[in-house]
C-alpha cells in the first residue's frame, strides 16, 4: 500500500542502533512505591459447566502484581490463565471480587464518572486488534486529538494540533504530517498500532497496559512496535504491562516476567532468571514448548520432550494446593493436600509457588 511513500522517504524508518535492549535493566530504577499494584486480587465469574449447571470460575485467584515506572513487566501463560483479566482489572473494566488495586500506593475504588476519568489520566490500555480499536470513520488527527481535548480541556486549537503532532512523532509516525489526515484504513497494521500507542500517550500516562499488542501484526513489523514500547519505557518513564503468549518476545522486551497458570502468578522474577533458571514445572513446560530458532532441524539439538497429552486448566473446581498438579510430571502428594507455598530466591526477587523450590538452598519459604 505504501510502497510509493517508501520511495519518497527512504529514511523515514529509523534503523535502531545495535544495543542491548535491556541494558537499563540492571540499574535499580525501582521506586519504593509501585505505580500500580494488585494486592491479593480475586475475580470470580459465574459460568456453566458442560451439563449446564452454574459454576464459579476463578479467573484470578489471589494475584499480587506490582508495576514500576521505567519497567516492562511481561505476563505470560496460556489462554484462560487470567492474563487479560488482570489487564481488565487494571483498566477498571472488571471489579475484583476481593482484593484491591492501588495507584501510587492509594487504593482505587472508582466506578465511572470523574474519578474514573482521572484514573485514566494515569493508566492507558493498548488493545490487541488495531483494526478494531480505531474508529474507521475518523482521521488520525481526530482520533489522537480527541483524547488531548478531553484530558486537557483548556488547550487552544493550535496547542492541541502541536501536541497531536508530537504524539505521533513519539510513536515513530514521522513525519506526522504524512499521517495526520489519513484514515485508519489507509494505514498498515503496524502503523495503526502506533496510532493506538500515540493516543495512549496523549495523557502522559504512568502505566501502559498492552494486551497482546503485536499478535495481529506481521513478523516484519512486530519488532518495531516492541522496540517502540521498549524505548518509551525510558523516554517517557512509563510502566508497561506487556501481556503475551510469546515468551521469546517477553524475554526480548521485558525486565520482569510473570508466569500465570489457573488464575495465579505461579512464578515471577527478573527476565533472565525466569528464562535461564525456571523453577516451576509449568514455566519449564512453557519454555520447552515455545519455538526456538536455535533448535532448527539438523542442528543436532533435541527439540524438547514430546508432549503427547495436554489438558486445559479447569478453574471451576474447588481444590487444595496446586492446579497444575494433575498435569505436573514431578507432582508430590503434598502438592494437592497442603496450601500452595511461596518461595523467594535469596539472590534476587524471583518468587515461585511450587514445592520444587524447597529442595534448593537458593530459595527461602515466605508462606
Amino acid at each position, binding site marked *: 500500500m505504501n510502497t510509493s511513500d517508501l520511495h519518497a522517504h527512504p529514511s523515514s524508518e529509523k534503523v535502531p542502533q545495535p544495543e542491548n535492549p535491556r541494558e537499563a535493566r540492571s540499574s535499580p530504577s525501582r521506586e519504593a512505591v509501585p505505580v500500580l499494584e494488585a494486592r491479593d486480587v480475586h475475580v470470580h465469574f459465574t459460568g456453566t459447566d458442560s451439563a449446564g449447571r452454574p459454576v464459579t470460575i476463578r479467573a484470578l485467584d489471589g494475584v499480587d502484581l506490582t508495576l514500576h515506572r521505567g519497567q516492562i513487566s511481561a505476563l505470560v501463560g496460556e489462554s484462560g490463565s487470567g492474563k487479560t483479566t488482570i489487564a481488565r482489572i487494571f483498566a477498571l473494566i472488571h471489579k475484583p471480587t476481593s482484593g484491591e488495586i492501588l495507584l501510587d500506593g492509594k487504593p482505587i475504588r472508582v466506578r465511572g464518572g470523574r474519578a474514573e476519568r482521572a484514573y485514566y489520566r494515569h493508566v492507558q490500555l493498548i488493545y490487541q486488534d488495531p483494526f478494531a480499536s480505531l474508529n474507521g470513520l475518523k482521521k488520525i488527527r481526530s482520533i489522537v486529538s480527541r483524547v488531548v481535548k478531553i484530558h486537557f480541556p483548556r488547550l487552544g486549537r493550535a496547542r492541541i494540533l502541536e501536541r497531536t503532532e508530537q504524539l505521533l512523532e513519539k510513536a515513530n509516525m514521522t513525519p506526522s504530517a504524512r499521517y495526520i489526515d489519513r484514515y485508519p484504513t489507509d494505514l498498515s497494521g503496524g502503523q495503526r498500532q502506533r496510532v493506538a500507542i500515540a493516543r495512549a500517550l496523549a495523557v502522559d500516562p504512568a502505566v501502559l497496559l498492552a494486551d497482546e499488542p503485536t499478535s495481529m501484526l506481521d513478523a516484519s513489523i512486530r519488532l518495531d512496535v516492541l522496540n517502540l514500547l521498549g524505548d518509551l519505557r525510558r523516554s517517557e518513564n512509563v510502566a508497561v504491562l506487556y501481556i503475551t503468549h510469546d515468551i521469546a518476545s517477553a524475554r526480548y522486551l521485558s525486565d520482569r516476567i510473570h508466569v500465570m497458570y489457573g488464575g495465579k502468578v505461579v512464578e515471577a522474577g527478573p527476565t533472565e532468571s525466569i528464562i535461564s533458571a525456571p523453577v516451576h514445572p509449568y514455566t519449564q513446560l512453557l519454555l520447552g514448548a515455545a*519455538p526456538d530458532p536455535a533448535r532448527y532441524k539438523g542442528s543436532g539439538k533435541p527439540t524438547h520432550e514430546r508432549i503427547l497429552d495436554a489438558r486445559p486448566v479447569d478453574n471451576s473446581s474447588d481444590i487444595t494446593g496446586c492446579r497444575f498438579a494433575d498435569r505436573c510430571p514431578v507432582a508430590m502428594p503434598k502438592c494437592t493436600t497442603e496450601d500452595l507455598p511461596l518461595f523467594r530466591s535469596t539472590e534476587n526477587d524471583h518468587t515461585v509457588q511450587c514445592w520444587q523450590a524447597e529442595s534448593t538452598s537458593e530459595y527461602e519459604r515466605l508462606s
Partner: protein
Amino acid sequence: MTLTTVPQHLETEAEIISRLEDSPVLLDVRGLCVDYVTEAGNIRACDDVDLTLRRGEILGVAGESASGKSTLLNALGRLQRMPAATSAGEIRFHPTDGTEPVDLVGLTEDELAAYRWTKISVVMQSAMASLNPVIRLGEQFTDVIRTHNPRIRQAEARAQAAELLTMVGISADRLTAFPFQLSGGMQQRALIALSLACDPDLVLMDEPTTAVDVVMQRQILDQVLAAQERLGFAVVFVTHDLSLLLEISDRIAIMYGGKVVEVGTAARLHSTAKHPYTRALRNAFPPLSEPVRRLSGIPGSPPDLLDLPPGCSFAPRCAAAMPICHQRVPELRDIDQGRSACFLTNGELSEQELAVQQHPPLNGGHDEEGEAL
C-alpha cells in the same frame, strides 16, 4: 500432562539432504500462477511458483500476510474458488501407488474426487469451521472413510476412526461427541486425525496451530510428527512463524509478494540464508536461548500486489538493493543446497557485473539505502 521422552534420532543436515535425494518426487509444481480477478485488475497472488516435493518430505512455506502462501496451498489442493483462478502452470502429482503422474490443474471436479482425502488431504486453521457442528465426530470419520472405500463396513470404519483419534491423543469415547464439546486444541487434533483417515500421500496444512496456545501447539506438532514418522506422508506446512518451521521442516520455501524467493534446508536458512528478505525475517523473531540483542523489523510495508515495483518486489525495503534490483526481476535459480531469487546470490550476474552494481559510478542514478545488512 504426560511428558514422554521419545528417543528421537536427530538427523544432521547431510542426512536430511540425502534422505530427500533418495526419495521419489511426489509433487512437481512448475510455473504456477494464481490470479484474483478484481474490478481494479487481476491480482497475481502466486507468480510463477516452482516447487518440488519428495515423498515423506516436510516442506515449510513461510511468508507474511499477502505473500501468497495460503493462495499457493489452496492452489495445490485445487481448493480455490472464484475470484481466485489458476491462470498458468502445472501441478504434477506422482501417486505412490505407481500409477501415472497427473497434472492436477487439468482435472475436473469429478476427476479430483478420486484424489481428495485418499491422496491429498487438507488441514485448515479453524477446526470449528472445518468440522460439521451438528454431526457427531464419529459419523464425520465414518462418512469420509466409507465414501472413499464403500466396501468397508460401518463397524470397521468406526474402529478405524477410534484408532485415528487415539493416535492424536484423543480418547476413542469422544467419537460420540459433537465438535463444540471438544476444546480448541482437541478440535484441531481431531481435524488432523480426520485428514489422515484415508492414508493420504500428502497433507496440506494451512496455519494449523495458529489459533491455539503454545503448549497445545507443541502437542499438536508432536502428534503430527509422530503420525508422519509412522505413516510416511508428505506435508506442506504454511505459517508465518519461521521459528516453528525451522524446527519441523526438512526444507523451507520463503514467499514474498507472490513469489518464492528462497528455498533451502532449515539449517541453511538458519545459518546462511541467501536472500536478504529471509535474513530479515529470521531476525524478526527474537531468540529464546541465544543471547538477546537489539533486533529491528523490516522497514516499510509488504508490497501492493496491484502495484508491484518493476524489479525485485523486496528491493524497496532491502538494505542491500542494487540499481538492477529496481529494474529487473531476479530469477529463482538453483544454488548450492536450494534456490535463491536474489541477484546477490543466484548467479544470474557475473562477478564483474555484481561488482559494478554494488559500487555504481557516482553519477549512476539510483542510490538507495547503501548500508549492507
